[in-house]
């Protein structure tokens, strides 16, 4: 179990993290979600021991590791830009963590066998003799993962692991990483600014903003019951209606009468639904509505009446 207690970190005058408390159960897959500058990467690096907090503690299974360096914490870390060793083959990269061991280093044959096993695990068997420069982005990412797993870490930390990949590769890798996490019984924490990625992958999502945690919850909870206006806005799409009311585009229905009049500006098909963009006449407020694609969409220029089905009210 990982426990993070009252962590604060400053860079000069800039307050990067303030009073962070978080507990992570063994086997959990956690997403640290937030915009850039929210402190999510700093928190991940503090857990790894690559950065040190100004105050507060980090516990691994009850041991205070706050003062321990990265080498002693025994965590797997996957860097955003992979950080592969370019002058080493893929197999040498994967074997690096084992070959630098100073005590009980496995024999050369054992190290080779272990590297081969890991390359099979990340579906790169047969590419061990290549150099990172000869691989695609997705393959490099998997090499970085195999390299991190070689030291058999109890905790796997990933910094924007899919950030540099194109959409299709990203989706495949996501699902595959989820399976791997389960199969190996890892505890994993990954940083992302992509709410879709966080909701799809994580058991629990930690939503961060301005160096603080806004909400910790399951993807269902942070989406359906956002704790703050920021979470409501950042996770999924939200219409901001007057007097602090937030409503999701799919939580709005078009009614015959008695609703809020909306002038339709634009209608287009967005996957399985009609996306309607309109303006609430009396407030001059833009609103987005998702309408079941089996219904007839209103035409631009028409005025319709809308009624929210489900809202969050953040009015104090």
């Amino acid at each position, binding site marked *: 179990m990982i426990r993070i207690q009252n962590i604060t970190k400053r860079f000069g005058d800039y307050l990067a993290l303030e009073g962070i408390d978080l507990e992570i159960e063994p086997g959990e897959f956690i997403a640290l979600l937030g915009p850039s500058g929210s402190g999510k990467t700093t928190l991940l690096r503090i857990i*790894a021991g*690559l950065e040190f907090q100004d105050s507060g503690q980090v516990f691994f299974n009850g041991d205070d590791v706050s003062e321990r*360096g*990265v*080498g002693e914490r*025994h*965590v*797997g*870390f996957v*860097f*955003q*830009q992979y*950080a*592969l*060793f*370019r*002058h*080493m083959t893929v197999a040498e990269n994967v074997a*690096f*963590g084992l070959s*630098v*061991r*100073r005590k009980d280093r496995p024999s050369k044959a054992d190290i080779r066998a272990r590297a081969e096993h890991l390359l099979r695990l990340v579906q790169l068997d047969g590419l061990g003799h*290549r*150099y*990172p*420069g*000869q691989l695609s982005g997705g393959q490099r990412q998997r090499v970085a993962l195999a*390299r*991190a797993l*070689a*030291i058999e870490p109890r905790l796997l930390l990933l910094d924007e692991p899919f950030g540099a990949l194109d959409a299709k590769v990203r989706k495949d890798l996501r699902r595959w990483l989820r399976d791997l996490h389960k199969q190996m019984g890892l505890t994993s924490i990954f940083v992302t600014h992509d709410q879709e990625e966080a909701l799809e992958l994580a058991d629990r999502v930690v939503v961060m903003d301005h160096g603080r945690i806004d909400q910790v919850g399951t993807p269902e909870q942070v989406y359906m019951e956002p704790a703050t206006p920021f979470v409501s806005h950042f996770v999924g799409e939200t219409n901001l209606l007057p007097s602090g009311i937030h409503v999701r585009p799919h939580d709005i229905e078009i009614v015959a009468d008695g609703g809020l009049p909306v002038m339709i500006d634009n209608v287009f098909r967005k996957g399985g639904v009609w996306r309607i963009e309109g303006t609430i006449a009396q407030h001059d407020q833009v609103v987005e509505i998702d309408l079941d694609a089996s219904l007839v969409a209103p035409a631009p220029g028409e005025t319709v009446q809308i009624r929210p089905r489900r809202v969050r009210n953040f009015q104090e």
Partner: protein
Amino acid sequence: MPSHSPSTIKRPPGSWRQPSVLPGFRLTFGLSVTWLTLIVLIPLATIFMKSAGMGWHEFVQVGLSNRALAAYRLSFGTAAVAGLVNAVFGLLVAWVLVRYTFPGHKVVSALVDLPFALPTAVAGIALTAIYAPNGWIGQYLEPLGIKVAFTPLGIIVALVFIGLPFVVRSVEPVLADLGKDVEEAAATLGASRLQTFNRVIFPAIFPALLTGFALAFARGVGEYGSVIFISGNMPGRTEIAPLLIVTQLEQYAYNGATAIATVMMLASFGVLLALNLLQAARRRRYGA
């Protein structure tokens, strides 16, 4: 053959010219060949022609005389040692300049380039004054039995001075580009600082270090101005090859001068070509 439409991007089969959307291949290629020919090739070819006119026997007698052989050994030997010394300390200076910010950083950085700008004779005179048996540093080395000025050691000191910027400026950008994350990756995998340097950082900057060494070495082989003051110029002991050429010229022995120049040029070219091939082989191995 790719089916590019306009006539500008045609590629005859077997051509080594890559099709490109950027125009001006003919112009730039033509200009650079002309330029290289005028500036480098024709002067060098003149040396060959001049020495070819003297006949094999005479060529060997002058170009490979005992005095000349001793001069080659001295020039190439001291240049190699100075290049190695520069590789070590130049790397250190580059490391400090890239990794640390300290007051006077810009001044130190400018200081590194000074050997480029200084007239080499000035450097030679200054170094001689310092390292002569009665000089600032020489007076303390003398009792220890270490003679610097007027020995091969003095030549090495001068060449180290001249060659420092080459190594620093070659290594610096590569070191800056290497990025902290590679080092951090090594640390998360349990590598010590020393292991990280030996196995991750050094191999990554080695090609740049080799380039710096090659440049410093090449400059050292040809260096004249700073060396003649500190070396003492004793034939067979501290007489460098460029000085031997000048000596020949002063005696109007133009053939002899070009013979020595030809040998030096071939040897230098061989060394630089070997270093370049080594680099190319490494690049091929590691992919893009």
